[in-house]
C-alpha cells in the first residue's frame, strides 16, 4: 500500500479521478450515446433502437444540409476576421502602448467583465439599437444619410455577425494579450536599434511571436460560432439557419436520431478543424 501510494502514477490518477469521472460521465458517455442514437430510427413519439444509415442518407442527400453547413462556415469565417482584427488591435494597444501596469490591469479587466455577464441579455441589448425605430436608424435618418429605415439592421446576417463579434471578441483579446505580455521587450529594442520602423517591428517581430495566442483565440471563436444555435436563432429572428439550429429544430420535433446524426457530423467537422489548429500550438506551454 505504501509503495503503491509512492508511485506518482497512482497518486496522479487518484487526484485526477474526480475530473476523469465527470468527463467520462458527462462528456464521453453522452458522445458515445449520440453516435449510437444517430443510427436509430424514430417514430412520431418515440425513438427505436436500430442500425440504420437512414439518418445519414437523409442528411447527405439533402441540399439543405450543404447550404446550412456553408452558412455556418460563413458565419465562422466572417466572425473570425472581425474578432481577430479587433482583438489583436486591442491587445496590442494594452500590451505595448499602455505603460503603467495598474492601468494595464484596469483596462484589461474592463475588457473581460462582460464575459461574466449573461450572453442572452447582451443579445437582447442590441434590440433598441438595431430595431426599425431603433437608435441606429433614427440617428442615420436625422443626419440625412438615409431616407427610410434600414430593414437589414436587426434580424439579418448582419445582426448575427454583430452579436457574435460583440460576444466573442474577448476570447481573442485574452489569449493574444497573454502571449504579447510574454514577448521579451529587449527583442523590440534590438529591432529598433537595428533600424526597424514601427510597422516592421509589428509585422516581423510581434505578429510571429503572437501566433500561439492567435491560434488559441481562433480555436475558441471558431468552435463557439460553429456550435452556436441560440445567437443565430435570436439575432436572425429565425430567418437564418446554421447547423446548431438544424439540430435544435430536430430536437424540438423529438427527432433525436436525426438530431444525433447532424450532431455527429458537426462534431467531426469541429474536431478536424481543431486538430489542424492544434498542430500549430502547444496549449499547455502557452498558459
Amino acid at each position, binding site marked *: 500500500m505504501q509503495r503503491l501510494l509512492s508511485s*506518482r*502514477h497512482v*497518486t*496522479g*490518477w487518484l*487526484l*485526477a479521478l*474526480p*475530473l476523469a469521472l*465527470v*468527463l467520462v460521465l*458527462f*462528456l464521453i458517455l*453522452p*458522445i458515445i*450515446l*449520440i453516435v449510437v*442514437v444517430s443510427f436509430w430510427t424514430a417514430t412520431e413519439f418515440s425513438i427505436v433502437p436500430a442500425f440504420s444509415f437512414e439518418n445519414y442518407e437523409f442528411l447527405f442527400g439533402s441540399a439543405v444540409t450543404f447550404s446550412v453547413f456553408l452558412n455556418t462556415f460563413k458565419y465562422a469565417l466572417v466572425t473570425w476576421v472581425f474578432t481577430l482584427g*479587433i482583438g489583436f*488591435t*486591442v491587445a496590442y*494597444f494594452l500590451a505595448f*502602448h499602455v505603460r503603467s501596469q495598474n492601468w494595464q490591469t484596469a*483596462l484589461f479587466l474592463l*475588457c473581460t*467583465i462582460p464575459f*461574466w*455577464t*449573461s*450572453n*442572452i*441579455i*447582451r443579445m*437582447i*441589448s442590441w*434590440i*433598441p*439599437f438595431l*430595431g426599425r425605430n431603433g*437608435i441606429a436608424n433614427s440617428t442615420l435618418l436625422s443626419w440625412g444619410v438615409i431616407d427610410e429605415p434600414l430593414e437589414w439592421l436587426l434580424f439579418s446576417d448582419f445582426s448575427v455577425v454583430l452579436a457574435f463579434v*460583440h460576444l466573442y*471578441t474577448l476570447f481573442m483579446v485574452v489569449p493574444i494579450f497573454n502571449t504579447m505580455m510574454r514577448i521579451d521587450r529587449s527583442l523590440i529594442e534590438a529591432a529598433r536599434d537595428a533600424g526597424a520602423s514601427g510597422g516592421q517591428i509589428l509585422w516581423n517581430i510581434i505578429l510571429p511571436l503572437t501566433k500561439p495566442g492567435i491560434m488559441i483565440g481562433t480555436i*475558441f471563436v471558431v468552435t463557439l460560432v*460553429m*456550435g*452556436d444555435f441560440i445567437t443565430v436563432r*435570436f439575432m436572425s429572428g429565425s430567418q437564418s439557419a446554421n447547423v*446548431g439550429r438544424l*439540430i*435544435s429544430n430536430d430536437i424540438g420535433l423529438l427527432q*433525436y436520431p436525426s*438530431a*444525433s446524426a447532424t*450532431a455527429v457530423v*458537426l*462534431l467531426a467537422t*469541429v474536431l478536424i478543424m*481543431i486538430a489542424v489548429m492544434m498542430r500549430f500550438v502547444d*496549449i499547455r506551454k502557452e*498558459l
Partner: protein
Amino acid sequence: MEPRSRSFYVLAAFFGLFLIFLYGPTLTIAILSFQGPQGGLTFPMQGVSTFWFRDLFEEQAVGDIWGAFRRSFALGLMVMVTTVAVSVMGGLAFRKRFHGSTVLFYVAVTALVIPSILVSLGVGLMFSQAGLGVHWATSGFGAQLTWTLPFGLLIMFAVFNRFDKAFEEAARDLGASNWQTIRHVVLPIIAPSLVGVALFGFTLSYDEFARTLLTAGSYNTLPLEIYGITTNVTTPVIFALGTLTTVFSLVVVGAFIGGAWVMNRRRLRAGSDAGKGV
C-alpha cells in the same frame, strides 16, 4: 520616457470605441429599463419611472423568475465549489505527469471546444434513456461541469507554471508532511487564483444557456426563463430583468475581484519577513 507616438492616440481612440461597443448596448437597456409605463422597447423615453421593475415583482407578469433565480444561484454555488475542488486536485495531479495525463488533458480540451448543444443533447438523452428524469441539480449540474472544469484546469495550469517550487522544497526540508505542505504552503500561495477559478465556476454556470437547455428538466434556470420571456414579452420589463441580472453579475464579479485583491495584499504584507531582520 519618450513622448507618445501618434499611433498611441489612434489606438487609444480605437480602444475607446471598442469599450463603447462592449458596454454601450448594456448601458442603453439599463437606461431604457426606467421607461415610463407607456414607453416602448426603444427611445424616446416616455417619462422616467420604476414601473417595469415593480412589474417584475408581480409573479403573473413574467412567470416564475424568482424561483428560476434561486435555482440558478444554488446551481452556481454547487458548480463553483465543485469546480474549485476538482480543478485544484486536477492541477496537482497534472504536475506529476502520470501515465495517461496527455489523454486526459486532450479530453478536457475537447470538453472545452465541443459544441455546447452536443453536451446538452447527449446528457439529456443519457438521462432519459437510463430512466432517470433530467433535473437541473443532476443532469444540468453535470453538463455545466464539462464547461467549467476545463476552464478551472487551464487556470490551474497557468498558476502552477508560475509556481515557485522552492517553497515546497523548503517546507519539506523543514519536515512538513505532504499534506502539511499542501495545506500550509501551496494552498495559501495559490489562494488568490482560486478566487478566480471560483468566479469562473459561478458566473459560467449562472449564465449558461445551451448546456442547460435540454438538461434542466421542468424547472428552468434563470437564463432559460429569460429566453422564454423574450419570445413572448415585448415590453421594457425584459430590460428591467436584464438590468437586474447584469447588476447582480457585476456585484458578484466585483466581490470576487475585490476578494482576490485583498488576499493578494495580505499575502504580500504577511508572506515574507525578508529584510526585516538586521
